[in-house]
């Protein structure tokens, strides 16, 4: 403990050197990779209604994005959803939200490493999951182990590399959708596919719950907020642009998959029948690399895209997988600092000064998830068991299930935290607010009730319900993760003689002043102090309970 305190004292604070483009690309390299994974899964589940599934999840994502933008601009600290919930709803809910985020980060490590290899397999066939499952498994395992070692040593990709890859990917994806929509998109075909391949309600719910995984990773907005110059003005600008860009790519790919006439004929299916593009992209062979396969069928540009999109996609996915290793260890480190997790998670490596315990533990969890996901393809006996118990879900769908569960659970808490903070921390200046608010008075203070947060909450709750209804494994493994974690939290807090269900006392006023001061938002800090003074004066005249 003494050692960690000494390290914390010596540890320099994060330098605020991220530019607006850096802030955008940081978020993009995290969320932008999701569509590379999500497209094939959603097409496989929601078939002709895949664009509807993406639209529903996309609208919920816009609400989530607006909530994160408001909160990250008002509280520019790196903890993201976990910090907002911790601050808005107290210790135990802060733990549960953080624990759900940790589940997502561990899945993020496996899912993106898995998908990275799937994309590479389009150029190196021996890596194909369907043809060589053992090779695929060993390579994914090596990637995760390699990322763990690199993170323990303290090697990270530079932000310039992130910016370059993000820039290249945006240009590439924009080109794909321009060529696709201008030369091959047929609205009649889109409507025909939607009418003839409309899924059952069960499959539509399944598709919607998988579509949300194309929009996960907004933690990076707050991560960037901690290191951005003047975050209150920069974050809203870059976040809105990021939200729209990601939404456009998700909607564009799903509409293209359903309504694009392929530039060259598709291979026949296993029974020798002709197949449609959406079906080809959503089958087990291609669903892990659907964007690369789709790009190769775009007119004019497809021949070139077939060569480089798998590589670009693989790099973006590898960066995203790495952000899972980095993010999980840092969130666990921060949660340990606020006594939500044992102090072991704050232990740093003697030589490299990185949170080695956290990195090892969460990469270990990721490897367990990988084994569970890969087992059905590695052993026919296990495949039988999965088929009987879990409707024969394949590995990547299992990972998608858990990813959707973790995201939906943590985002639900973020909406509640936003509403709570609007009421209980009305003194904090908000340079950006979600639109459509109802002004009202609460404990003598003027506050605004966020209508969009309620809509977003209902949307994400419905996705959580869809996940529980449609995912056999997700409905068991997701809640089990939360319940086991909560039991561990209660035991830890009891052993440490800390409040178990209540929160420890926190000096949020001092914390907020420090946050705004270190962000360089001195005008906001002055405004905050003035608001507090006014509230205190008002309370001295009319005592109405705590702030």
């Amino acid at each position, binding site marked *: 403990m003494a050692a960690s305190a000494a390290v914390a004292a010596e540890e320099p604070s994060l330098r605020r050197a991220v530019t607006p*483009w850096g802030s955008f690309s940081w978020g993009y390299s995290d969320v932008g990779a999701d569509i590379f994974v999500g497209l094939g899964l959603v097409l496989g589940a929601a078939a002709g209604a895949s664009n509807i599934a993406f*639209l529903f999840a996309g609208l919920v994502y816009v609400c989530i994005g607006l909530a994160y933008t408001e909160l990250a601009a008002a509280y520019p600290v790196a903890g993201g959803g976990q910090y907002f919930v911790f601050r808005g709803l107290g210790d135990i809910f802060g733990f549960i939200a953080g624990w759900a985020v940790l589940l997502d980060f561990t899945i993020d490590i496996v899912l993106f490493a898995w998908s990275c290899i799937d994309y590479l397999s389009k150029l190196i066939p021996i890596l194909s999951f369907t043809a060589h499952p053992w090779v695929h498994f060993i390579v994914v395992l090596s990637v995760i182990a390699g990322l763990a070692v690199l993170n323990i040593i303290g090697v990270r990709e530079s932000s310039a590399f992130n910016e370059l890859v993000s820039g290249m990917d945006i240009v590439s994806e924009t080109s794909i959708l321009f060529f696709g*929509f201008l030369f091959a*998109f047929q*609205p009649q075909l889109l*409507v025909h596919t939607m009418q003839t391949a409309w899924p059952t309600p069960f499959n539509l719910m399944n598709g919607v719950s998988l579509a949300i995984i194309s929009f996960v990773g907004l933690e990076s907005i707050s991560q960037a907020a901690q290191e951005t110059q003047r975050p209150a003005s920069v974050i809203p600008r870059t976040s809105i*642009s990021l939200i729209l860009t990601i939404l*456009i790519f998700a909607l*564009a790919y799903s*509409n293209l998959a359903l309504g694009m006439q392929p530039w060259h004929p598709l291979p026949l299916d296993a029974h020798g029948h002709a197949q449609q593009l959406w079906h080809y992209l959503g089958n087990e062979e291609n669903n892990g690399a659907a964007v690369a396969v789709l790009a190769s069928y775009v007119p004019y540009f497809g021949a070139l895209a077939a060569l480089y999109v798998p590589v670009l996609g693989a790099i973006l996915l590898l960066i995203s997988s790495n952000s899972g290793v980095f993010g999980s260890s840092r969130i666990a480190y921060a949660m340990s600092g606020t006594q939500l997790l044992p102090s072991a998670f704050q232990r740093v490596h003697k030589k490299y000064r990185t949170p080695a315990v956290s990195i090892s533990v969460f990469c270990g969890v990721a490897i367990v998830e990988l084994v569970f996901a890969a087992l059905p393809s590695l052993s026919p006996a296990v495949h039988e068991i999965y088929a009987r118990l879990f409707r024969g879900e394949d590995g990547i769908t299992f990972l998608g299930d858990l990813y959707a569960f973790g995201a939906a659970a943590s985002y639900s808490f973020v909406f509640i935290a936003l509403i709570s903070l609007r009421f209980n921390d009305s003194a904090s200046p908000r340079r950006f607010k979600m639109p459509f608010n109802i002004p009202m008075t609460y404990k003598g203070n003027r506050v605004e009730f966020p209508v969009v947060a309620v809509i977003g909450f209902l949307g994400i709750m419905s996705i959580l319900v869809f996940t529980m209804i449609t995912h056999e494994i997700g409905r068991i493994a997701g809640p089990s993760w939360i319940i086991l974690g909560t039991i561990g939290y209660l035991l830890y807090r009891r052993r440490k003689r800390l409040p178990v269900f209540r929160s420890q006392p926190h000096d949020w006023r001092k914390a907020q002043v420090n946050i705004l001061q270190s962000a360089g938002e001195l005008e906001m800090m002055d405004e905050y102090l003035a608001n507090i003074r006014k509230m205190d004066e008002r309370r001295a005249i009319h005592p109405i309970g705590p702030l």
Partner: protein
Amino acid sequence: MKNFLRSEGYARARLVSGALFVLLGIVVIVRTLAATGAAVAAIPACALGGAMVALGVLRYRDYFTNRAR
């Protein structure tokens, strides 16, 4: 890279891409509505077109806001 991102050339490139997004968005909406009419099946494609127009407008707004500074 940083110099390029601060240059007028980069700002103009964003302006051009913004214009392209607005145009493509309009093309997607018009073609979809022309082919399907005001059908429910047209909603996702029209939403995509709307998002493209919004992104284009946002880039224009950013450009002129930055110039005003």
